[in-house]
């Protein structure tokens, strides 16, 4: 959705247009969820983060003013704060994080396929866990939330060039880990 269209939708939602509110939800709820999933590597926690983020959007959207970062930067800053709160709660509740839990597949998925998915998910969790916080944020926003490097820069309050460098290093690290893992296996 182009910025101009998004702006119109946000304004309508602010004025109580339920259709516009539904459009915003459908557009951003999955992206917030995937962002939280990459950050937290826990499906239920990611769902909680997505729900809590939209509860905050519901309360705060009236006060939202369209400034430089736009709606996406504002939304994912809220999501980022909610993720931090969730991480604090989770660290108290769970001693050991088991990594990303794959969603339950279709009923016709074979046990072998399920096992492969679990293995890949664990590998992803392990790989992402190796990254620095900034790199993990970039990966979550770029490939989880689907933001561009410019949008990611606005959310993280960094320059786009810095985001591109973090992205490059993060992917290089993941490639090295993957190669090393394959070599070992």
């Amino acid at each position: 959705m182009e910025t101009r269209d998004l702006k119109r939708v946000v304004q309508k939602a602010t004025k109580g247009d339920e259709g516009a509110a539904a459009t915003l939800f459908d557009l951003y709820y999955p992206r917030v969820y995937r962002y939280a999933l990459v950050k937290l590597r826990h499906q239920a926690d990611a769902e909680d983060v997505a729900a809590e983020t939209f509860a905050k959007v519901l309360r705060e959207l009236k006060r939202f003013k369209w400034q430089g970062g736009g709606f996406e930067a504002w939304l994912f800053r809220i999501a980022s704060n909610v993720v931090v709160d969730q991480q604090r709660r989770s660290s108290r509740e769970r001693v050991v994080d088991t990594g990303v839990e794959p969603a339950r597949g279709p009923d016709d998925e074979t046990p072998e396929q399920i096992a492969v998915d679990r293995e890949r998910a664990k590998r992803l969790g392990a790989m992402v866990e190796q990254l620095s916080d900034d790199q993990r944020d970039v990966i979550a926003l770029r490939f989880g939330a689907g933001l561009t490097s410019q949008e990611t820069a606005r959310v993280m309050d960094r320059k786009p060039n810095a985001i591109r460098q973090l992205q490059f290093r993060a992917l290089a690290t993941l490639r090295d880990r993957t190669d090393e893992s394959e070599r070992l296996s």
Partner: protein
Amino acid sequence: MRNAPEDALDRVLSGGDDADPLVNDLAVVAGDLKAMINEHGSPSGSHERVVFVQGMGAQGHSPSPWRFVGPAAVVVSLLALLGFVSHSAIPGQALYPVRRIMSSIGLAESPLHEADRRIGSVEAAVQTAEEVEADWPSEADDLAVRGITGLSLARELLEDVGSPQASTRLEQIEGLEARAKGVIVRVNPDVGDKEEKKIKAKKHTGAKSSDKKNGSEDANKDAQKGSGNGAGDPEASGNEPDATPNEGQHDEGPDGNGQGVDVQGDQPGANVQGNNVNDDTSRRSGSSGGDQRDGSVHDRRQRSDSEGQGAVRRVLQKVLRKKGPDKN
């Protein structure tokens, strides 16, 4: 900067191409990563969706109370300003209806209340005048005249109210006016005699005066004599060049005691009334003012003029005119 591998990778991830094998390797890793993330799918969030959509809809229908603060402040300010500028309006003034409305909602003093206040103030002034008239006649005279002025304003307010309460107060005003007039007459004992003499003199000389070809000549004379109100003198008001009245008719007022003296040329083409004929106050003052006034009254009128107390002078003239019957 555009050729840096970081920029090239970003360009490839955005759908572009690059020949650098490293960049392409990393783009493959990114693709795998995206696929793995998306493999997990995403919850429908159907419950959250309903809450969010309906919540946004409800917010749109419940406007913030703060949005009314600005307009309300403007309205209150305007009402306050209107109340301030109209709080002392009297019947006949443009803002008087506003004052009535404001007083009906308690934002301005009601005419009845203001009349009460004025009556109370005049009552005290008349009381004081009566007490001091023997020792300080001049001050007592001033107090009485000011009291009558205040009563005239109160009367205007009450006449507009027009309720049974107002009629009670009007009677009270009549009583106070009589007391104030009594003070004026007592401290100016010669004024009543002069007034009576003037009326009689006019009856005798009216015809001669109206025979004059140009009535304005008399008016000029009166004015030069220091009446300060020559235009209001019926004798001086025949200022039409073609006015040739053969006989001036002197009419007394309905009470037949000298009140409301009119001097009218009743011959065709005669016009000795002048432009002030409709101005009852001026006409009456003309019959009682002018060169026939004794020194003290004349001085007082001049003082009133100099002080810009037109209302006081008007009332004084009215009182002096009415003083004849009181004396009788």
